[in-house]
């Protein structure tokens, strides 16, 4: 196996198709990166929501017991 390009600049030039090749790879891996970010942070967002709900319920229960 042998590298097909003479130099790094040659590689980035992509035989004259640099714009199209790097545009497609940029959008592809860029959107994958965003997707991965959203997937990973979703768990903590869900847990925060649930925690807030639990706290709200506790406050309500507290409030009710104060009234009596």
């Amino acid at each position: 196996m042998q590298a097909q390009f003479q130099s790094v600049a040659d590689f980035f030039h992509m035989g004259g198709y640099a714009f199209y090749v790097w545009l497609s790879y940029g959008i592809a891996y860029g959107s994958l990166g965003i997707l991965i970010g959203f997937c990973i942070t979703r768990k903590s967002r869900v847990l925060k929501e649930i925690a807030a709900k639990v706290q709200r319920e506790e406050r309500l229960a507290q409030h009710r017991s104060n009234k009596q």
Partner: protein
Amino acid sequence: MWKWLHPYAEPQRAYQLAGKFIPWLSILATLMLLTGTIWGMVFSPTDYQQGDSYRIIFVHVPAASMSMSAYIGMAIAAFIGLVWQIKLADWMAASIAPVGAVITFIALVTGSTWGKPMWGTWWVWDARLTSELVLLFLYLGVISLYASFEDKVLAARAAGILAIVGVINIPIIKYSVDWWNSLHQGSIKMTGKTAMPPDMLVPLVINILGFGVMIAALSLVRFRAEILARNGMRPWVRELAQAEGVK
């Protein structure tokens, strides 16, 4: 015989099991995509007709073929959820949908940026491109239906029916290049005179599999979060939320 499977239908067990698979799948996907992409971009021979523009294939074909596989996976999960009323299957289907939508988007965009230098146009309304666009809309439809109902049992039923009906689109995408005249090139030949040489085919196959493993890993990550979201009343989830959610 299959009774050992039963405990895994319990949300907490499924959550833990998914958690065990994710690191391995992520490592495997990363290694495969690095290998396939570097091999394809640097070492695969230049195409005699398309020059180096063909190197878009190493992201376009994996995305396109796995956008269909992910859809079939989602539809199977939706079918299991619909017929046997297994909620975990519904949640799995809902977890695959956004991942599949992004993969389909990637297939469309990379196809477009490959079409411009080779065909002279970003887009044509031919069968292959249009049916792939319909696939994107099917994914978006499933996502929006699932998001539209507060009652997630009902939501999963509505989204599931759309997902199952939409399977009809998959053979249309797959065989569109054979059934209709198209600017899009035909399927890749593995054997025979016009077969793709191994120096191009092997990295391509590695990337296709890598995309598959990556989709599985991301779907499982979403699946775990979905289990938590749907079980917010369960004590184990509440404990987890108070341990990790309050910050």
